[in-house]
């Protein structure tokens, strides 16, 4: 089965259960937003999928393969952290080329792929810039290009819009969605922001206390929230979504 499957995953820190037999299926090429308040276990979920943390129980499947035993450098998961994590000593081109270089792709292939990605993320002509010379939106696009360079089957985004200022947020959000659509990569994005999750996610998984308590389309969640808690978490969207609608 294509896509990402999180099957019965638990992870505890001492007595605190960060993930509690969590189940989540992200279909191939789908954009899934995981939304929940701070401390609900979103970051732990990302770290377990990435392979930074080992779950206490459960399995992670990517495109039908159990990746539990693979170290993080062998999982080939695209990852864009909250602060974008660009390598400060490398220019835009070398950041994008990083994954291809360490995988020893031939130079011509690296150049073609990097150039292709820089077109996709609309950063042609900026190859030689250092990260500190870029705006937050540009940094995010470099991080996306870098994460997508090795054609990962899964892309993980950690609070992708939290470092973007309000004035450019709508544009960056649209861009992000467009790039995801064009690359057709299975995407899981965690955010605490209801609006971001509603605008980005084809489906939204509402997370609370280490569990997914409801997973549905934005409209589905608004129409029939499973619990009062879900209704409370997505409350701002009853006005915003009905006013503005999807992107």
């Amino acid at each position, binding site marked *: 089965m294509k896509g990402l499957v999180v099957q019965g995953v638990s992870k505890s820190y001492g007595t605190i259960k960060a993930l509690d037999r969590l189940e989540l299926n992200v279909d191939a090429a789908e954009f899934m937003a995981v939304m929940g308040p701070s401390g609900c276990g979103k970051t732990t979920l990302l770290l377990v999928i*990435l392979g*930074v943390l080992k779950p206490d129980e459960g399995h992670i499947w990517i495109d039908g393969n159990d990746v539990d035993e693979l*170290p*993080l*450098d*062998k*999982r*080939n*998961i*695209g*990852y864009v*952290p909250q602060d974008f*994590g660009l*390598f*400060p*000593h490398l220019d835009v081109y070398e950041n994008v080329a*990083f*994954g291809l*270089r*360490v*995988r020893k792709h031939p130079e011509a292939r690296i150049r073609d792929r990097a150039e292709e990605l820089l077109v996709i993320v609309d950063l042609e002509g900026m190859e030689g810039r250092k990260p500190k010379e870029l705006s937050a939106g540009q940094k995010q696009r470099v991080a996306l290009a*870098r*994460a997508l*360079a*090795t054609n990962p089957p899964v892309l993980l985004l950690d609070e992708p819009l939290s470092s973007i200022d309000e004035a450019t947020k709508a544009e960056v959000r649209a861009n992000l969605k467009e790039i995801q659509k064009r690359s057709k990569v299975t995407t899981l994005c965690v955010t605490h922001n209801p609006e971001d999750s509603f605008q980005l996610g084809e489906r939204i998984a509402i997370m609370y206390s280490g569990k997914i308590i409801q997973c549905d389309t934005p409209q589905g969640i608004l129409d029939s929230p499973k619990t009062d808690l879900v209704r409370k978490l997505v409350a701002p969207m009853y006005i915003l979504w009905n006013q503005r609608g999807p992107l």
Partner: protein
Amino acid sequence: MTRDRFELAIIVLASALIIYMLVSILYLYIAVGERWSSVVNALFDSRVLGAIAISISSALIVGALAIAAAIPSAYLLAYKSFRGKGALETFLIDLPQTFPPVTEGLVYLLMFGRVGLAYTYAAVIIAKFYVSAPFAISFATRRFREIRESGLDVIARTLGAGTRHVLGRILLPLSSRDLLAGFSLTWARAMGELAATLVFAGAIPWRTEAIPTLVYLTAAEMPEVAIAASVIAETLSIVALLSFRWIARRRS
């Protein structure tokens, strides 16, 4: 008003310390001025030249070895969790800086004396390394920890980088200034090390006699030789530290 007076008192105290430190360094040059011609003659004394050669070469070798040792140790301390890590860090970094160097020289004499290493050039390196290398190790460890906190190594790994690439493409390039700073302090400390070197390596001119040992042995009998050697050592240290600072600032 009261607060301003208090601040003034702090500035006066700080100034007193600064003057004390500067005078301690600069008084040597005043001493040179008093005995100008005999000190200049002593500068070309074969024993002084030998000590300069031994000091500079051994300190450079110690600096290079310390960097080579600092990289794996810093990786271990920054990235691996194991029992007794705190104690290990104390043994690697804090203890050598506080342990009496003369005792360390004695330990090496007992340990390596019977295999013929005592009173050799290698003994100079071994003695200076123990006391000086912690500077390089602590600088590298602190920087590797900062990089780990930033998560850049995790991102590199998600992109397929193994430990070799994480080290070669992320940790080392991002630590170059800190490694340079570690090297320079290690070098300066190695230049000044006396007790461990004297006990374990002795003071054989052109073989194991470094500037501090020469100064120690000649201070009472031939002060002009001691002053000549000291002024060379001090000038070299000041110039080297200032140059390293300048290079580090340019790189940033």
